[in-house]
């Protein structure tokens, strides 16, 4: 009886996998033979991030915690949900808040903003944990010193991505968190109005550093958090920082492979 149902199904499956369409996408058979296990890694651009074979201890969950992979996956989730959010959001003081309210109340099954926000929080934590793992296994040691440095820059980019995104809902939580955070820039040595030694940068009687041109002004695009800040943070959040992060991730992954794959005892 079961056979009567399964036989045509398996025939249809065979028909499909033998078709020109299927074989044009997948250049080899199922990865059950060693040959095909190697081919699947080499013929797929995404799987090609991996080597064909790897040391057994290195790919154990208890060793890597999969934390780097999870961080990358969260980055992809954030890129995807962020893209959808961009359809609905206008980065102006006039519309930003109202667009977020619309997004919550009028978009069917609207959990894109939730996925984006909780995913962003989660990514900050997984980056920390990934670094904890890399440190605790001594994986920054030669030959991986440079890649650890790239990783530190990626940590900074993650925090900056989260920080710039924090402003976009344009609610009280957003502007005051950014105000508190960016007030620190006022105290930059030499370059902030209230920073050490900046008063010594003068041209005759004219002070070169003032609230209209100091480090905080460069960050905010204004003397206080306002429309220029919103636009600036939006562009950095949606274009500048993700591009930088994607670029460095490419270097990071490439170097993982070139420095000998997942670390292990020499």
């Amino acid at each position, binding site marked *: 009886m079961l056979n009567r149902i399964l036989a045509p199904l398996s025939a249809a499956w065979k028909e499909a996998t033998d078709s020109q369409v299927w074989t044009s996408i997948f250049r080899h058979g199922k990865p059950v033979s060693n040959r095909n296990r190697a081919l699947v890694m080499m013929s797929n651009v995404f799987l090609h991030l991996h080597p064909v074979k790897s040391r057994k201890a290195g790919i154990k969950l208890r060793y890597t915690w*999969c934390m780097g992979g999870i961080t990358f996956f969260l980055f992809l989730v954030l890129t995807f949900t962020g893209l959808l959010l961009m359809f609905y959001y206008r980065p102006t003081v006039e519309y930003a*808040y109202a667009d977020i309210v619309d997004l*919550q109340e009028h978009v069917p099954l609207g959990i894109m903003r939730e996925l984006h926000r909780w995913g962003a929080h989660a990514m*900050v934590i997984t980056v920390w944990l990934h670094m904890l793992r890399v440190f605790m296994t*001594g994986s*920054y040691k030669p030959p991986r010193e440079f890649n*650890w440095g790239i990783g530190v820059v990626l940590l900074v980019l993650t925090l900056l991505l989260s920080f710039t995104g924090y402003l976009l809902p344009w609610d*009280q939580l957003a*502007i005051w968190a950014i105000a508190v955070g960016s007030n620190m820039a006022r*105290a930059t040595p030499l370059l902030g109005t209230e920073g050490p030694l900046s008063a010594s940068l003068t041209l005759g009687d004219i002070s070169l550093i003032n609230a209209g041109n100091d480090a905080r002004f460069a960050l905010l695009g204004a003397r206080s958090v306002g429309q220029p800040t919103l636009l600036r943070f939006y562009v950095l959040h949606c274009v500048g920082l993700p591009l930088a992060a994607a670029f460095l991730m490419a270097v990071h992954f490439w170097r993982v492979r070139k420095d000998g794959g997942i670390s292990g005892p020499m």
Partner: protein
Amino acid sequence: MIDLFKDLVNWASGPTVLFTIATLGLLAAFRFTQVWSKTSAKVFFVVLAVFYTASMWDPDFLLIVAKPDNIPITGVIFLVFFFTWFAMHQGIQNDRRSAGEGEVLEKQESEKVWVWPDLVYTEMLAMVILSIVLLVWSILLAAPLEQPANPADSPNPSKAPWYFLGLQEMLVYFDPWLAGVVFPTLIIVGLMAIPYIDTNPKGNGYFTFKERKAEIVIFLFGFLILWCLLVVSGTFLRGPNWNFFGPYEYWDVHRVEPLLNVNVSDFFWVKLLGRPLPTGGFFAALMREWLGILMVGAYLFVLPVVMSWPRDKFPTGLKWLSCHHYFEKMGATRYYLGVSLFLMMMSLPIKMYLRWAFNLKYIVAFPEIFFNI
């Protein structure tokens, strides 16, 4: 009974007590490594989970913990505890193996396996589980949205995003040019410098504690105490006016904390000599601050040199200060870079204890040019 317990927890969460307990606890755990066992991890997690769950009945605790943007902090607490334990546990197990006849686990399993299926299936599973977690989290909990932005109405307390609250907490002890600019820069530079300072060839590619004690103790003190603990207490325990509030305390906006902080110059001129602070011009300011300048200079520039001396140059009781073996092993450049970064890091706890013990505000204070340390 419950009130007594709550008072005890409120008292123990105060910055002074919490920081001291956490630091001593961490150091004790490095000394008595048997505490990183499975049993103590289970006990610890049960205690933490019970404490957390039971506390939900307290309205003040619930109010702060259940705030949507504070949910990640609860995640940080449990995840950081778990993964620190997990790393240390595996390290100590490996140390036992290599102390006996065996080899570390990572070396035992050094044969090569096919990445398909062994790794790609793990990754697939991780993606599926993470997707489910994110979806459930997002369905259950709406992202926060407060009142529309109003530049004229600043909330009290105004807090940075949670991952920067360690830096905001530093503002209690340092001026913004240090807490907000210099220290973050040093954290980034210091992290990137780690592989170039640390010349210990052991412990590369496997969990261990015994072979990398100094590195792990310093890193985990920085990560767990100076970063995570400050983030957690900055989120949960700092209320209006950045005053401290225990986890079961009501955030009273009108609570007034007396600020009686004094500078080193006040200690020297006013309290010790009984004279007013020198005034008038650049040299008077230098004279006013000479002791503080000397202290900071000695800490940053003389102490590293002294620490490089061999042990027999130190009097008994101070021999632990000698880092001569590091100087020998690492060479002058690495040694001075490493020790300077370490001393910079330790300046935070030092300043904290100076504040708590003597109400010390600034060691060096030139408010005229915003140069206060």
